[in-house]
């Protein structure tokens, strides 16, 4: 028996070595194939996640709930302090609420006068965060919605407060959101009061730094940062966060989205904007079935025009602006979350 086994091992040693060498070659080949044809392997990866992650939901739910309970228990010891802070904050917010109500009325009036249509195609699909990547150097989460719900690569995602990231990888039932904090995330933004363009460059930290600022001397802490829509994929005007300055004089963004508790995420269903191919169509517009073919500007200027004159060059819509200035802001034509079958492009 002992001799048989030792003889067995004598011949198993070299065979094992060969097998290990083959294994190493296979692994190296997998890596090289990924390096050469990354999209195909990435699709395989998403397909694997599609298989593995959703059935794990039942196991994750109780543990996630337990962790949340522990976290909220930890917060009990400073609940009194929090209560005081919240009361103070509430007082301030009440005055803000008054201001906001007045501004909202004013805004509705101005919108009605200007016949501005906010982008009606910007509807959203909501998803639940299933899992994260489980690696400290890669910041992304998996959502329970995928190509079945019409999700496409590159769409922006936000929670209730601000931008969370973008879709990078769509499976049948899951999609991956690359968070703004990931080291490979780059998002063009505008810093609000000064209008400076910049990039939010993720570096795995809680507050990603701002890079490529045009004129850094015009940027101050507490400026608000919104997505600029450059590049065409991201819609503009989504709140990202506010500027903070670290001790090394670098500007970073304190993100508005609550990254410590990402649970529900909205995926903004953005269509690519129509590109303007040349000057021709701007000067000679397409003849419309009603009304004369008049020259019209590319986009209505953001300045507010006085209401009483319904200028035909300003409003090519069939009905001119209602002269009495009643607010008729049209509601969103599409429901917020359509049925999965009703999504136009699968």
């Amino acid at each position, binding site marked *: 028996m002992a001799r048989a086994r030792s003889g067995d091992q004598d011949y198993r040693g070299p065979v094992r070595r060969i097998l290990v060498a083959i294994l*190493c070659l296979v692994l190296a080949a*997998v890596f090289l194939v990924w390096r050469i044809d990354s999209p195909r392997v990435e699709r395989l990866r998403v397909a*694997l996640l599609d298989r593995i992650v959703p059935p794990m939901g039942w196991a994750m739910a109780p543990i996630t709930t337990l962790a949340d309970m522990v976290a909220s228990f930890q917060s009990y010891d400073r609940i009194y302090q929090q209560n005081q802070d919240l009361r103070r904050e509430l007082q301030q917010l009440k005055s803000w609420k008054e201001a906001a109500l007045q501004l909202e009325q004013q805004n509705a009036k101005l919108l009605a006068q200007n016949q501005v249509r906010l982008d009606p195609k910007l509807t959203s699909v909501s998803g639940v965060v299933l899992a994260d990547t*489980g690696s400290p150097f890669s910041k992304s*989460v998996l959502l329970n919605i995928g190509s079945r719900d019409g999700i496409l690569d590159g769409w922006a995602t936000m929670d209730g407060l601000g931008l969370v990231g973008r879709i990078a990888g769509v499976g049948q039932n899951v999609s991956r959101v690359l968070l703004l904090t990931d080291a490979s995330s780059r998002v063009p933004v505008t810093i609000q009061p000064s209008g400076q363009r910049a990039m939010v460059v993720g570096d795995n930290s809680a507050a990603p730094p701002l890079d490529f600022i045009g004129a850094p001397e015009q940027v101050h802490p507490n400026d608000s940062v919104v997505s600029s829509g450059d590049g065409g994929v991201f819609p503009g005007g989504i709140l990202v966060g506010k500027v903070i300055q670290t001790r090394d004089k670098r500007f970073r963004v304190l993100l508005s989205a609550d990254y410590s508790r990402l649970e529900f995420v909205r995926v903004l269903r953005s269509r690519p904007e129509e590109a303007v191919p040349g000057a021709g169509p701007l000067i000679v517009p397409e003849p419309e079935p009603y009304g004369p073919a008049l020259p019209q500007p590319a986009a209505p200027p953001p300045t507010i025009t006085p209401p009483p004159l319904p200028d035909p060059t300003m409003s090519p819509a069939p009905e001119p602006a209602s002269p009495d200035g009643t607010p008729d802001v049209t509601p969103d034509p599409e429901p917020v979350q359509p049925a999965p079958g009703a999504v136009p492009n699968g």
Partner: protein
Amino acid sequence: MVDPRTAERLTYRALYFACAGLVLFLGLLPLSQTPTLWPVPDGWQEGLPEGLLLFGLPVPDVLLCLTLLWVQRRPDFITVWAVAVVFLLSDLLAMRPPGLWTLIVVVGTEIIRVREADTRDMPPWGEWAVAAVAILGMMLAYRLALGLFLLPDVDTGQAAGAALMTILLYPVLAGILRVTLGLRRAATGEVDQLGKRL
């Protein structure tokens, strides 16, 4: 009737898969997407350096630690195929380039496995030193390979922090596994119930 030695070996191989699966599963839990300083209570965080507040504490690579422990203590309880499968899965889940980190870990653990019989009479700190060298070597090789293939890499400081935390985790995890699973190093000349060398 399975002989006890084979039964033990199969049990520990299954236990490795179970532990690795648990680590991967816990890593997937969507608890928080912000860097944490969880051992530090909230009130104490004000005076900490800014970099620590921004990046949080470095997170150790628990899976690597677990695998090194298993390979160093009982190499017959973990096959090279188990290492390859577990790390390839973790590569795919963690959005790393698939195959590269697996290849490095497979090569590293094979080197340790071949030398296991010679290093059996090392004191415990010797085992820890081997693990530390292996962790540093593997992480360095990974970063070099990433650089060679022009892939984006993480910040050096963060990677060094992660390596340090992994090295510090090693004795802790060793203690835990010894108490819970009875995973310990075979002594020189130790035999099993049938009088066979381990």
